[in-house]
């Protein structure tokens, strides 16, 4: 008997992740590293550049269906949003609004805006969001994946939450302000960023899944991400007053029920789950438990 091979999404590079998600050999990368579109700003800070500026974009197929795909490279400056990095993603999204692939798949792995290019990154983040809205308006869904080592923070977190669907692993962290930033600005009693268990249960994929923001929780295994993406290659739900009123109500009741809680375990217990067991569960076990509770 052979054991199934574990192919970690967390540890893979952006290109390895894409290779495991799309049909073999189907990726046509746009502006690949050979084109050398580097940051025009990092040199001024005596910082190293990368020939892809930490963003891989291209066209591929999944199960034979055409998709556009972008992936942030967490191993280059924390997958941060700089001018060129953002522009590659904006260009891909604008292209998708015209060419209308079956979906755009976005692999997030980012600490947020690149501080050396803070203004370009912040503006870029909102240009990406405008472009996502235009893609959705064109009838193409945007599917976000979170499971990289840098998580999905700051501007990237807000972009990801504008996607139609989010798929994440337990390892995929999602929040606006990172724990280190909250600790630096508000003090260690506000958020002890060295308490890794606290960080995981606050920002990790399981907590985000139990609130309903993650449509599919998967194990840290690239084929599992791929299987989940294949399920969501369907047209997006249009933004309407009815849909947003439902979302408003859902977010309001979450705030009313849990707004004062400071520990995810209290919330999980209130949801009817065995809070001590949640961190031990696999994605399948937690998905089953959440359906019952």
């Amino acid at each position, binding site marked *: 008997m052979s054991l199934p091979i574990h192919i970690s999404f967390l540890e893979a590079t952006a290109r390895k992740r894409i290779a495991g998600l799309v049909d073999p050999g189907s990726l046509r990368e746009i502006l690949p590293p050979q084109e050398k579109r580097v940051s025009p700003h990092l040199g001024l800070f005596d910082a190293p550049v990368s020939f892809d500026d930490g963003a891989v974009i291209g066209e591929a197929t999944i199960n034979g269906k055409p998709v556009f795909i972008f992936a942030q490279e967490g191993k280059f400056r924390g997958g941060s949003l700089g001018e060129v990095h953002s522009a590659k993603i904006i260009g891909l999204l604008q292209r998708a609004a015209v060419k209308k692939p079956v979906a755009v798949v976005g692999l997030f792995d980012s600490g947020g805006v690149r501080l050396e290019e803070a203004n370009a990154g912040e503006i870029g983040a909102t240009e990406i969001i405008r472009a996502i809205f235009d893609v959705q308006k064109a009838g193409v869904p945007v599917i976000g994946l979170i499971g990289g080592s840098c998580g999905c923070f700051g501007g990237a977190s807000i972009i990801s939450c504008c996607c139609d669907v989010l798929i994440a692993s337990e390892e995929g962290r999602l929040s606006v302000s990172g724990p280190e930033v909250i600790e630096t600005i508000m003090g260690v009693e*506000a958020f002890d960023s060295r308490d890794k268990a606290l960080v995981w249960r606050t920002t990790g994929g399981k907590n985000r899944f139990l609130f309903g923001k993650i449509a599919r929780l998967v194990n840290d295994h690239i084929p599992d991400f791929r299987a989940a993406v294949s399920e969501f290659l369907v047209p997006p739900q249009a933004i309407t007053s009815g849909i947003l009123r439902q979302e408003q109500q859902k977010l309001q009741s979450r*705030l009313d029920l849990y707004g004062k809680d400071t520990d995810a375990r209290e919330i999980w217990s209130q949801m009817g789950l065995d809070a001590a067991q949640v961190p031990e569960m696999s994605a399948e076990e937690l998905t089953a438990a959440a359906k019952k509770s």
Partner: protein
Amino acid sequence: MELPDLLQAFFPNGHSIAVNDWLVSGEAVLDGGTVSVLGTTNHAFIGAAEALIVSDKLLAISEQHPGRPVIMLVDNRGQRMALNEELLVLPEYVAHLLKAQQLARLNGSKLIAILYGPAIAGGFIAFGMLADRIIAVPGAEPSVMALEAISRVTKMPLEKLENLAKTISVFAPGCDNFFKMGGVYEIWNDDFSGRLQQLLKSDVSQDLRARLGQARGGRKSAQDVIDEVLRA
């Protein structure tokens, strides 16, 4: 500008705008018709509760007055930084507020953001940066992060950052920098009402920021890269 002066300068024909703690909400009549006015004051923080209150107002505008221009008054010190906010999935609340802005746009509303106080990081993204046009008036201080904090996080000496900030616009706070990057469309110092009415008559549907950033020299690469990807 202080809020009462700003309201007087923009809406000299009169308005019915209520200020409740941090929330500014109501409507005003311009020569071209009625506009909805929605915003924050007193340097608000944007947390889950604030995002929901503003979203609710925006949804009501879309439902009751689809297509009416929305003037967004921006004065915030950023997203509320707290464990309990992030525990609830704060980025989902911010995204909900952005979708409410997109719904107004889909219904034909022009969204004009007026920056008149601080507009910082996640708070600026949540309310301001997704408008069709972003205007700065006296008092506006758009910012991602103060240089002192950038210095702490990046371990670069503050003096070096201050020197760099004199020659490039890409990272330091301030209206002029955001203008050069294309992130602020125009800076107004007079004739506020007249300029607003002119702007509302124009086509604001295209996101011009990358193109403006290129023309003004602050972002020389973004538009070229976007065009290259479109042609590829």
